[in-house]
């Protein structure tokens, strides 16, 4: 076995999710991503089980592994109880750990996801926090969200929420000692290190591209090349 395959096999999701794939393509047939992107989970599973180091390295540096929406529809359908969605998660983890993610347009998006989602968890204790979900950045949220955003405290009060309040309730302010525990968990389990890895790789890539971090962020958040799509 090769180095990359051995590293992948350390991931519990791969050990649970990879049995002998028969290449039937059921996962691809039901996959929401395969209909939208040039994406074929069957080939991903086949590449991994081939243990071909060059092919796995190419996969880890590609856009391909970032197309999955992690809905796990493939898990239900696989006749051999494989979990292609979980295998993709293991591939993504290794791609980040090795710094390969920064080589692809879709992989680079990890920079924004890390900053926003980890930032929300550490700052508020939630993955999503409504004051950081703005209508300007999310016009699809509708004119009703535009209205809610202007009156967020009043809307939460009207609807039984507890926005930034003491005690239990929807979007309450989670006590500082609890958020401190989340930070300790981040430090002890590799999340802080992952944030650092992603940030440093993004800064290096931005420099390579001759972009400021603000320009890099804007580009990564907004741009998607035509090569990704099935049409």
């Amino acid at each position, binding site marked *: 076995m090769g180095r990359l395959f051995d590293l992948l096999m350390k991931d519990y999701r791969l050990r649970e999710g990879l049995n002998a794939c028969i290449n039937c393509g059921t996962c691809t047939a039901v996959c929401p991503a395969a209909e939208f992107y040039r994406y074929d989970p069957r080939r991903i599973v086949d590449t991994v089980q081939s243990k071909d180091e060059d092919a796995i390295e190419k996969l880890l540096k590609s856009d391909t592994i970032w197309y999955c929406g*992690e809905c796990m529809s493939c898990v239900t359908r696989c006749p051999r109880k494989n979990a292609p969605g979980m295998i993709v998660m293991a591939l993504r983890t290794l791609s980040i750990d090795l710094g390969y993610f920064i080589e692809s347009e879709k992989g680079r998006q990890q920079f924004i*996801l890390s900053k926003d989602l980890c930032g929300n968890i550490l700052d508020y204790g939630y993955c999503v926090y409504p004051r950081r979900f703005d209508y300007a950045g999310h016009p699809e949220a509708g004119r009703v969200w535009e209205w809610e955003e202007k009156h967020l405290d009043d809307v939460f009060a*009207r609807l039984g929420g507890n926005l930034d309040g003491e005690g239990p*309730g*929807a979007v309450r302010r989670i006590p500082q000692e609890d958020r401190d525990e989340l930070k300790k*968990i981040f430090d002890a389990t590799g999340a802080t290190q992952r944030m650092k890895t992603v940030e440093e790789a993004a800064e290096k890539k931005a420099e390579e591209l001759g972009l400021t971090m603000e320009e890099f962020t804007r580009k990564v958040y907004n741009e998607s090349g035509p090569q990704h799509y099935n049409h």
Partner: protein
Amino acid sequence: MIYEGKQKIWSEYQKEIPDDHYFYVRSCIRQSFFPASEATFLEITRNRLGKDIFETEHHTTCGGIAYHSDAIPQETAMTIIARQFGLMHKYGYENYVCSCITSFGLYCETLETWRQFPELAAKIADILWKTCKLEFAKPRFIVHASDLIYHYRNEIAAMARHRLVNVHTGEPLKVVEHIGCHYSKMFPSKGVGGAEYPYVLAGMIEAWGGQVVDYPERRHCCGFGFRQYFIKANRGYSLSNTYKKFESMEPYHPDMIITNCPGCPYFMDRWQYVIAEETGKTYGENGHGIPVFTYEEVAGLVLGYDPWDLGLQTHQIGPEPVLDKMGIKYDPSRKYLGLKGKDLGMPVCPGCIK
């Protein structure tokens, strides 16, 4: 498949749902976009049904959205989850109910991984003690909040003020049920009815007088896709999947949609708005969209709560066609008022959809 065959499959996926005494944890998305739904869940279970549903302010996100956006490692998510379970144990509970489907799926995944790899569970227990000084514990029963409303569906039906019936024709309302992917696609035995014929929402619809719509893309994802929505460049993925579902259900003329995942009602509501604004196409009657509801909102309507107390004014697709069919009285002039009648103005009307 014939109806009897479906019933047989459902009967093989009946999970045990304890009747009372739960440790309750919220959902990042549901509390942000549907705070009244969580309030309604607690109102119905605690005040109408007299159940013990305990919440502490010390619980947090499970980390599921970050985990499925690959922003945090598996061990981070597992330790945050172990912390939630540790709090449950500390407060003397062994039944765990969560508001979020992503969380529910992740709890099931984590417990299964710990079962298969006990050395990993031991490692997480050690980290939990070192970081949080909490004792490692597992829930005896873990359910999604929709499992509990399903469990109480007949008690709710017995108290019903309204039914999922068109009062003008006497016909049952045609209801699309949309189950969040992570409810049972990964672990079919953990969901009521399994993954192919989940019965958790269908059971509510039938108990409350409606008719379940079976359509080809019934089990297709709403299109959230985590990173596929959070990153603007990817949002076409999310929209395309919702579009596929609506094109599939359109010939069946559904009156309404009921969902059990926090994200799905948001996406199925908002992407209808986007499709209408972009193309002029609407899927409901007379220029309306198809109203999309959480299961708590539907339970609240059945029990006679004011639609504006349930938060239906925060939907982009107006609920009024369904309210009118069910014979529910409402005051349009109070729709967008704040507490004590405070004037909050009102949203700008969309161009193409009611």
